């Protein structure tokens, strides 16, 4: 048994033990042990992976293993990781770990679904079989409904339903796209690597086929990546979700979208990506600016952050579509960075909401004096969000911009510059929010005696900040690790990049 499978196995064991244990203490023990084990495993994986690479192992995926599963349908249980997956697993490990502490007071059922969600996420990132990938993708989606619907707040039923339906609608597109890829490549293998390298019975997918299925796959994953105009599940969903779920959703689940777009849409359908990227570039570019501007006038903290996520996640897809090595690396970095900082943001917002019972910017004032620890956490999340150097957002955004600038034509230039403006707008909404709720003097007597963070909340916040700062201060190992894994995809692209997109009217 390949040790990557532990990423699925541990959550399974957690589910089992959660089912068996009784009492809050037992649940907490299971969750803490389990999530720590996952975090430790992902850290170990990172080191092992780097060591392996340093030792000169240049295989595209490491630790690969494949077991035939549905033999007649050529479905196999295939796992493997490259730098991107390792980064994503690390992110997931951190978020699940901190999410556990953030949802300290929750009940057993909550943790059951929470763990199932985690299992889906981890499984998705270790899969290299399209079927498995899709399966884990859906496993990760559905617990969302109950997590939001039962433990959420506000219009939770509406939001939960909307979120679930939109994401499932996306998965309908995705499934068709996967079939298209599978049968387009000869219907012999679901293995990503085989399809990409035309081995294991896979053949080259015809150009016309690629152009049909690329939009399906891209939209399918893009919806989860909050691609404009399919992002509207995100503000409502985030606003209604309980804290840790928001964290996990924005922090990890939305990354499934970007990861999938890159791993499946771009990697397996490079010709179509080259041909059709302009459509989605316009959409995502619009989303980047649009999300940022929409965030400026929100009054609910979670909505604000959700729109900011739309903008940032739009940036991920935007960067992926730039089809350059740097931009793609930046996209992955942005996923990591956004995952961490949004998780931090949602965590702090949730904690504030838990105390003040409101998330309305207009009703919160002067929190810095009352709950300094949370406020500082909030401010740091905000600063990371607006791309302060030394924190992760800066690294990711700069990589994206430099990468996007490698496309020299006017079309890409204009879009890139438009996307750059989002960092200004980000400053506007972040500072507006920070200024309104943290600064000033508190006028609401109910808020005067709020207590600051508990130890478990502090732990979560500190871990997240440490990760954000860690990436922000020392990004090159990560960047190199990711880029080494981006390059196979880029080779696919470069094989076709000489042909200029014929359908793009702006070229």
């Amino acid at each position: 048994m390949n040790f990557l499978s532990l990423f699925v196995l541990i959550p399974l064991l957690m589910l089992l033990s959660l089912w068996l244990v009784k009492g809050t203490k037992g649940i907490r023990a299971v969750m803490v042990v389990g999530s720590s084990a996952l975090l430790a495993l992902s850290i170990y994986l990172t080191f092992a992976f780097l060591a392996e690479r340093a030792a000169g192992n240049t295989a595209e995926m490491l630790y690969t293993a494949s077991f035939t599963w549905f033999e007649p349908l050529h479905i196999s249980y295939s796992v493997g990781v490259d730098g991107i997956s390792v980064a994503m697993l690390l992110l997931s490990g951190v978020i699940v770990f901190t999410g556990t502490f953030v949802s300290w007071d929750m009940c057993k059922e909550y943790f059951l679904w929470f763990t199932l969600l985690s299992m889906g996420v981890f499984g998705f990132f270790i899969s290299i079989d399209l079927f498995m990938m899709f399966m884990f993708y859906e496993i990760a989606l559905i617990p969302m409904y109950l997590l939001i619907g039962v433990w959420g707040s506000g219009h939770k039923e509406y939001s939960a339903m909307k979120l679930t339906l939109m994401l499932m609608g996306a998965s309908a597109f995705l499934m068709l796209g996967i079939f298209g890829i599978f049968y387009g490549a000869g219907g012999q293998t679901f293995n990503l690597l085989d399809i990409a390298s035309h081995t294991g019975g896979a053949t080259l997918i015809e150009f016309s086929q690629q152009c049909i299925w690329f939009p399906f796959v891209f939209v399918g994953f893009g919806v989860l990546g909050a691609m404009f105009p399919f992002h509207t599940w995100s503000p409502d969903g985030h606003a209604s979700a309980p804290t840790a779920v928001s964290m996990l959703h924005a922090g990890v689940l939305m990354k499934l979208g970007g990861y999938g777009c890159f791993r499946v849409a771009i990697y397996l359908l490079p010709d179509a990506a080259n041909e059709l990227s302009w459509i989605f570039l316009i959409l995502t570019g619009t989303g980047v600016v649009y999300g940022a501007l929409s965030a400026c006038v929100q009054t609910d903290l979670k909505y604000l952050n959700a729109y900011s996520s739309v903008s940032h996640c739009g940036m991920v897809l935007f960067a992926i579509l730039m089809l350059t090595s740097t931009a793609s690396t930046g996209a992955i970095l942005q996923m990591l960075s956004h995952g961490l900082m949004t998780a931090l943001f949602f965590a702090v917002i949730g904690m504030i909401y838990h105390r003040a019972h409101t998330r309305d910017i207009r009703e919160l004032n002067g929190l810095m004096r009352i709950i300094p620890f949370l406020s500082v956490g909030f401010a740091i999340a905000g600063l990371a969000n607006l791309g302060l150097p030394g924190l992760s957002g800066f690294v990711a955004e700069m990589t994206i911009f430099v990468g996007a600038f490698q496309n020299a034509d006017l079309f890409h230039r204009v879009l890139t510059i438009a996307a750059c403006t989002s960092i200004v707008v980000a400053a506007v909404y972040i500072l507006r929010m920070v200024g309104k709720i943290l600064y000033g003097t508190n006028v609401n007597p109910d808020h005067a005696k709020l207590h600051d963070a508990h130890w478990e909340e502090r732990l979560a916040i500190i871990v997240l900040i440490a990760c954000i700062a860690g990436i922000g201060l020392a990004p090159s190992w990560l960047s190199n690790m990711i880029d080494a894994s981006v390059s196979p995809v880029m080779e696919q692209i470069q094989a076709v990049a000489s042909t200029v997109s014929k359908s793009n009217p702006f070229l």
Partner: protein
Amino acid sequence: MNFTYTIFILLLPFFSFLILGLAGKWLSHRTAGIFGTLVLGVVTVLSYFTAFEYFTADRVDGVFQTLVPYNFVWLPFFDGGLHFDLGIMLDPITVMMLIVISTVSLMVHIYSFGYMHGERGFQRYYAYLSLFTMSMLGLVMATNIFQMYMFWELVGVCSYLLIGFYYTQAPAVAASKKAFIVTRFADLGFLIGILFYGYYTGSFSFDFTNTAVYLNGAMPGVGADFSKAIAGAGFILPTALFLMFVGGAGKSAMFPLHIWLPDAMEGPTPVSALIHAATMVVAGVFQVARMFPLWIQYAPETLHIVAWIGAFTAFYAAAVACAQSDIKRVLAFSTISQIAFMMVALGVCLPEGGYTDNHASLGYMASMYHLFTHAMFKATLFLCAGCIIHAVHSNEMEFMGGMRKYMPITHITFLIACLAISGIPPFSGFFSKDEILVAAFHYSSAMGWIMTGIAAMTAFYMFRLYYGIFWGTENVEYHEHHTPHESPAVMTIPLILLTVITVTVGWILPGSFGSFVSATGEAYHIHLDWSVAGTSIVIAVIAIALATYIYSGVRQPIAEKMKATFPALHKWAYHRFYLDEVYQFVTHRIVFGIFSRSFAWFDRHVVDGFFNFLAWGTNAASYSIRTLQSGRVQQYAFVFLLGVLVLILMLII
């Protein structure tokens, strides 16, 4: 020469920030202050030592070597041979800036010990100061434009945090936000400039030796021919440089991006002295100076645009400064005006004979010189203003007047700094400003006369301020309640030290500044052009006399009359020509009011509405077709039959 120890110039304040920031809660004010100041003291010593080492080292070909003790790839990019490096680069202007920053910063550290005494968040204050010092030092020691941008952003954030230090007060919060957003907006230009620059030259480095190769030959990245054609057309590099200048204009408060600086005076006064007078605001000038070889070689026409922007800013700020009543505002506009002088000085450099001609590029040296001197005397002015505010508890001139009796040391130092800024010899400002004027005249006499006129306005409004504070009508009533008193030694000593520098730096080292800092790196000996210097002295004296005539008396009939005669002008000048309101209108009404609101509305009602419509449509369809399931079995059979018939027809037709 081994300059590896320079790394500590960056690391020490950083650790100081970490310690004060993380552990500050458990430290007493005193410990925190002393710790921060001591660390900064060490940094200052190191800086001076570096300067000494550097400038005493041998020149190669008559030029100070550009040294890079550290440089490593911090963030690799994978296309076009680009990478984001961090490192330390030492060249004359860096070393000069090290001295400026560490000196002023140390003074401010010491001064704040008194000024901020007993303030809540004292540790936080010192943490921010440390962070700022680190960032500013990093900015000037950057080896490449991207590193500069990185620290550029960091100083912006420090500025934000420090302006908003009194975060419970709404104006401070608003001012900090404004400062950050305006500069951030300008930084967008900087970033795009960097991106253009990096793409077309294949490097972010300040080592320009490779740049020309890229410009003339093969391009990195995709589409070699295309980019070559553009670069050949010759507007890429000027565009990139101008975009970078936009960033610099934001930081250095060039018109029309200056609006944040007056508001930034909401921060503690020592912060204004450090950040908004001496160091951060000159980052824009420093940036242009840093890229100067490229400017002068590839974009001289654009450089002149910079000069004119600077000239206009200088004039505008001087005009506004004449009408302000808040002493820090006056100083702020004065700062804007003086930085604009520096900008003009850079802008008027001429490319004749290439950039190897020190004479054509006199402005470069003048600008740096003025940067240096200005930092000292403007810091003095701000710190004096701090003492006064400390004593009066107000920024408004109406609460002052006649302060000379209460605060003699402050009075003297303030006066000396005023004389310096007015360009009266032998104070340092005279020498540097004179060089600027010479450079301006060298460029065109129109520019020269304009700048001379503005120099006179400087003298006028500075002495208006001086008289308003120390002479003029004393607000006796107010002073009876709060008798002003001289500040403690911890505050006055920095004043005196800075004043000593101001007084001495001009004539102790006459002409020697140019031998350290010049456009080419070769020694340039300053020699006063007495025709220009004489004119400027005369005009300055006249302006001072005018100010004395109008403002020094207990009653100021002429000032009143002037106000009454040109009420509109005064009002407009007082309101800074309503630029803030214009910005307010554009941002709030247009960007937020129209775009953001309509986007948010669009999102909720159109995009979201579409998906809700789908759901509603399904439900509505469900209701509307329910009669199909009427419960009548004969209808069922009817449908059954129709189904069969339709299917048969489908097949046979």
